[in-house]
């Protein structure tokens, strides 16, 4: 069947909504709102009954692959299980129907929750001062770079560049530009870490910050992190920790102890939020003492009597707000519940198992003899994720990483991240997470092996995959060339 949108369904006059009755004396509507301010024709929204609405969205929902149905080893995204308890507690009306402008005296539970979450994040990161405000990791990055700017400006310095490794997430350089800095790339050494010589060469007094992920997007923990911190701090720059990979080290190592000044968390990754098809997320930041004065307002404060308040002027040199209200509180509830459920030991178990699972999957792939077609890009072991290069596979078997990914769909798996990080040719970035079973990892490794074996016989199968999905390969070029980004409506 042709996919039909909700705008192509229903009929004029149908409705799911029953309007409340007008229960006040009726005034002349045109007097209340003069004609020149009025809408002349209604927005052409769908006209459907509730049964039609439900059926439409239930049906299209089933055209998604989801984490509750299958393995989703999307590297750098930490697709771990989403406990359903979190949805239950977030839905409690005391949380879900709490108005953001409610006075603090009437929001003590919410403020205590946020205060506790701040402290927990401070402890996990080793950086004591936390702001929960940013809406996502990229938003946390922006906060961090703007804090860096404030830090330097407070010292009377105008610096112009920010260093980012060539393995970094795309959000890092994009953030740098948005924050008014210029990106300077730093190379990667043969072990997959920062090229110290290149770093030394580029680290000068014009550098405001080095943005780093550790372990980085290669799944490599940089063993020179202390030296890197020294180099950066020696030129007066800040060291920023992109927390996307925090799931590798919870309870095992802390960015603060490595010398980082600023860290952002992806609550939707390490602290398990449902990813929602691409949001919502939440990107709190934690900072060291010297960055504290610049944090975003308002600040949650606890009085002597144990009560909580929102201090709009809590940080005197604050960079200001990054959004409305206090951040994505609904996300805080979920991640706080997660931390309460797991505790110190459970968080450590999560990271240990994430690293164990990744290394086991890597070993299992080697057992299947796929290492010559899909070698590990760097090192021998990995942290919570690893990067394979599909370059030999492409050369020897004639199938690209993209083909492998599409063929995995036919096996019932969501593919790993493909073509990232950029410095690895035909990259395949695999992050199994801690919530997968050994059986699942075994099955996935076997599927990769089967696809390679199949390609050795007939590469066209993978090249034209997938076959069993709701649609087959889609023409992205055509979509970009003549953008059709909304449904045309005739009446």
């Amino acid at each position, binding site marked *: 069947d042709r996919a039909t949108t909700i705008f192509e369904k229903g009929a004029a006059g149908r409705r799911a909504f029953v309007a409340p009755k007008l229960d006040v004396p009726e005034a002349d509507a045109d007097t209340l709102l003069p004609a020149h301010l009025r809408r002349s024709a209604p927005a052409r929204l769908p006209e459907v009954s509730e049964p039609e609405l439900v059926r439409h969205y239930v049906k299209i929902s089933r055209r998604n692959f989801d984490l509750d149905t299958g393995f989703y080893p999307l590297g750098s995204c930490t697709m771990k299980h989403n406990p359903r308890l979190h949805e239950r507690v977030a839905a409690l009306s005391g949380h879900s129907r709490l108005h953001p402008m409610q006075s603090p005296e009437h929001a003590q539970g919410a403020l*205590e929750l946020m205060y506790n979450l701040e402290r927990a994040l401070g402890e996990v990161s080793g950086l004591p001062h936390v702001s929960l405000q940013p809406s996502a990791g990229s938003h946390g990055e922006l906060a961090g770079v703007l804090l860096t700017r404030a830090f330097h400006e407070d010292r009377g310095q105008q610096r112009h560049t920010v260093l980012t490794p060539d393995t970094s997430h795309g959000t890092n350089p994009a953030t740098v530009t948005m924050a*008014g800095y210029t990106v300077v790339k730093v190379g990667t050494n043969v072990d997959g870490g920062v090229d110290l010589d290149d770093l030394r060469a580029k680290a000068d007094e014009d550098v405001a910050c080095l943005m780093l992920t550790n372990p980085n997007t290669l799944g490599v923990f940089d063993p020179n992190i202390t030296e890197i911190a020294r180099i950066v701090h020696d030129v007066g720059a800040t060291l920023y920790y992109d927390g996307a990979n925090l799931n590798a080290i919870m*309870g095992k190592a802390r960015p603060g102890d490595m010398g980082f000044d600023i860290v952002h968390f992806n609550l939707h990754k390490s602290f398990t939020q449902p990813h929602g098809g691409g949001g919502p997320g939440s990107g709190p930041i934690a900072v060291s003492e010297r960055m504290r004065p610049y944090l975003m307002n308002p600040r949650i404060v606890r009085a002597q009597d144990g009560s909580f308040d929102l201090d709009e002027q809590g940080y005197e040199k604050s960079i200001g707000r990054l959004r409305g209200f206090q951040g994505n509180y609904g996300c805080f509830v979920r991640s706080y519940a997660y931390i309460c459920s797991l505790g110190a030991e459970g968080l450590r178990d999560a990271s240990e198992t994430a690293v164990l699972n990744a*290394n086991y999957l890597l070993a299992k792939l080697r057992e299947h003899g796929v290492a010559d077609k899909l070698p590990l890009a760097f090192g021998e072991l990995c942290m919570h994720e690893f990067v394979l290069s599909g370059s030999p596979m492409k050369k020897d078997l004639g199938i690209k990483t993209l083909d492998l990914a599409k063929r995995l769909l036919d096996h019932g798996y969501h593919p790993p991240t493909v073509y990232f990080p950029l410095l690895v040719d035909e990259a395949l970035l695999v992050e199994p997470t801690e919530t997968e079973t050994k059986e699942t990892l075994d099955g996935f490794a076997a599927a990769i092996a089967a696809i390679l074996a199949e390609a050795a016989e007939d590469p066209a199968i993978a090249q034209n995959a997938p076959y069993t999905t709701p649609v087959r390969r889609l023409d992205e070029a055509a979509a970009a060339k003549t953008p059709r980004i909304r449904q045309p409506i005739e009446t």
Partner: protein
Amino acid sequence: MSQYTAVTDADLAEMLSAIGVGSVQELFDRQIPADVRLGRPLDLPEGMPEQDVYAHLRDLAARNTGAEDEITFLGAGMYDHYVPAVIDMLLGRSEFLTPYTPYQPEVSQGNLQVMFEYQTAISELTGLPVSNASVYEGPSAVASAGYLARLANGRPKFVVSRGLHPHSRETLATYAHGFGAEIVEVGLRDGVTDPEAWAAAIDGETGAVFFAQPNFLGAVEDAEALAAAAKDSPAVVVGQYDPIPLGVLKPPGECGVDVAVGEGQTLGNRLDFGGPSFGFFAATEAYLRRMPGRIAGETVDADGRRGFVLTLQTREQHIRREKATSNICTAQALNALAGVVYLTWLGREGLVELGELLLQRTHHARERLTALDGVTALHDQPVVREFAVALDVGGTDGVRRVIARCQEAGVNPGYALGRDYEEYGDGLLVALTEQRSAADIDRLAEVLGAAVAAERADAEVAAS
């Protein structure tokens, strides 16, 4: 092993053997230098059984006064609209709740089609041809519109109406300080943006102008006139809209607005103490390739079947990195789903009916309150869902005390404008939704009248 992990002792032995290490700890020891390893447990409470976590979170919830616990007229940027049950049900489906961004479109047609439908709905709502698939929320959407202007024309001056939500103005200022733009604020007169000061502030160096519709005082602005004032400048005209009133208000696309942004919470999203919700971001065709965030587009598959993909990705950070139009990545897909489901639930007639109902109830509430002793209208502009009054109780502290008195009686009368506007220290901002009935308005009038009277009596006693 926890309730979420599954490595049994037998599994562990097999896995370590396959890897060729003796313990999990060895995996860390071999990769993380000793000097940065954490040699102690995290200083966090012990984990708890599910029932105890539930009880703890429920206890915290019980210490908040939510919209089920009082009759609330709080608005000021988020509004207690009824969220229909179909939204809970659809958003709770694993298929919508748990996937990530649709990087593999063949198995993400559900999400991609939702984005496409959402874009269509926002386009219809705003009367603008182009919508992205959502940004974080309202105020950062305003700031993102500023960045779009910065990339589009590079002019350093932003002219901003003081009628914009204070959080929007602050967020815009934070962003603008980073990418280098200067804010010029234009004050309000008679409740709306001062038209002369507005026109005077706009010149050839103006990169963007920003107003809110309705503005923070609830007043309906003459959006067409505000946009027209920027017609001869290079400025991008940015309107921050409350979507619900768009059922009755002239849409930005018919007012000369280039970029319409706003807070999407009112479209089927919970209050959630301020988030998550979504920001909508719509524009004229000219800005299609400057848009931040995800955009879904229609295409065909290898068999010629209709399908949807993320499109125009060369704008985005994961492709263009430092040259991207924004750093946004994860945005608010699930909240935007709520938005399009809500608009579908309301439907073509429903959005209008809702707007007309709010218009009448808001007018009625304004009449009722301004009839009270010590309560006067702060302005006489048309209002749709929110209005401002002045309480003759000696300024912001008095207003806050009046609010507290009302809350003791189970009614939250609204927002103390003095929290953000020195010039309206005696102001109270009162918001309506379809959940506040005529009886609720009566109760508000009763409680507010009594509270103002009591406050004034106490003040007299104190003064005497």
